[in-house]
């Protein structure tokens, strides 16, 4: 192979600027879509075990639809199709006046996809770990809503920090999909640099290390949270 490595391009102001800005957008999109995913996932996952039938049904539909349609298709639907099928004035607003339209769309699309997966984890945690203690909590005189809020939900969430770490990591990686609608995040900027310099290996090495560092930070953060709330200790509990 006679590829000529030239690491110096990574230190040229222009290209370094592009790559760092890409990294920054990747971090922003990842965190924002994770916030959406957590919020929506908590609500939908909780609603799956709600006393209300319609709440359970609604959450079930959301989870089934968003989990089963490929995230790339969802992104395109939100970005290209939605503005055309909503009332004209709203469509126009989406296309013209929405600030950072690509970024916002990416965050919503990725967030809602990941949210459906988070919802399933939340439901599983509640069912497997939280709900079995419901009778004991009720027996002490707690009202069902209190028992859920004080025992079932906190226990269910403690049980799923591990799976949630994976979902968080997936969300970070999904952020690269947003390049398809024109967001200049880390992957897009690496290709950008490649196109200008023909030094793609260096640019993608930067991207690889960037994703790796973000991923390690996510893992570390979740492990810290797990230790703080005692999730790890719970899993060691003998039955």
């Amino acid at each position: 192979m006679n590829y000529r490595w030239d690491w110096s391009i990574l230190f040229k102001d222009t290209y370094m600027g592009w790559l760092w800005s890409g990294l920054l957008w990747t971090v922003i999109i990842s965190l924002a879509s994770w916030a959406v995913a957590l919020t929506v996932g908590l609500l939908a996952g909780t609603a799956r075990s709600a006393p209300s039938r319609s709440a359970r049904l609604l959450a079930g539909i959301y989870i089934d639809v968003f989990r089963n349609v490929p995230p790339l298709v969802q992104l395109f639907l939100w970005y290209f199709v939605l503005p055309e099928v909503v009332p004209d004035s709203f469509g126009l607003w989406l296309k013209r006046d929405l600030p950072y339209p690509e970024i916002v769309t990416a965050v919503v699309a990725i967030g809602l996809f990941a949210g459906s997966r988070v919802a399933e984890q939340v439901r599983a945690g509640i069912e497997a770990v939280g709900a079995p203690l419901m009778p004991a909590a009720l027996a002490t005189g707690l009202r069902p809503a209190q028992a859920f809020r004080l025992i079932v939900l906190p226990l269910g969430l403690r049980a799923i920090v591990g799976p949630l770490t994976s979902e968080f990591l997936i969300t970070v990686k999904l952020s690269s999909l947003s390049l398809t609608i024109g967001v200049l995040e880390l992957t897009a900027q690496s290709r950008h640099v490649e196109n200008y310099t023909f030094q793609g290996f260096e640019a993608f090495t930067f991207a690889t290390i960037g994703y790796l560092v973000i991923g390690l930070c996510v893992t570390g953060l979740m492990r810290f949270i797990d230790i703080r709330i005692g999730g790890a200790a719970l899993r060691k509990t003998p039955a």
Partner: protein
Amino acid sequence: MIVIEDVHKSYGNQHILRACSATVSLGEVVVVCGPSGSGKSTLIKCINGLVPFERGTITVDGVSVSSPKTDLPALRSRIGMVFQSFELYPHMTALQNVSLAQIHVLKRSRAEADARSEKILARVGLGDKRDSRPSQLSGGQQQRVSIARALAMDPQAMLFDEPTSALDPEMINEVLEVMQELALEGMTMMVVTHEMGFAQRVADRVLFMDRGQIVEDTPKAQFFTAPVSERARQFLTNVLTH
């Protein structure tokens, strides 16, 4: 105190409880025994409304469990329940386990609740375990925390569902001793157990269940010397010789 009248319960087309009637008077200790699957757990969970039933009535201190007008949580807060598998909240310390319902149901302040919890933990012999989590306690200790959690609500009656069945033999006595003490202090108790020694020491009456029916409801002395039903006789020989 607890009056059970003609209670029927089925799961699907399986008739689990048939025409069960019994009373537990104030200060009485009633032991319930019978083969596995005979409906003991179901019956005891009907008393505090954890299991709904189709027919019949159960009243606790004059309040009907199945009436839609009854404030079921309030009623449950006056009946302590202890489960076979302890059912402690694993993410909380022993003290927090005992304090939780005092704070959220009885609306005691945290300080007040914790003070009460410490007293009760000491009473069940766990004064030094207030900050331990369930996973750091032995089975016998966990079950005593569970008893403390129920006692902290100042219950009018206590229900026990095989409280020692999940315990290693050397831990059974520490739990039975706590229960025996409670009985001596005059607590109204309904205890599902196969510990016939316990029944002989503290029970006033023994109920024997078989296939969803209470086939025997006799004073303790008679149950052990001259049980009415053939089924109970067989059961006794099995349990006592093991």
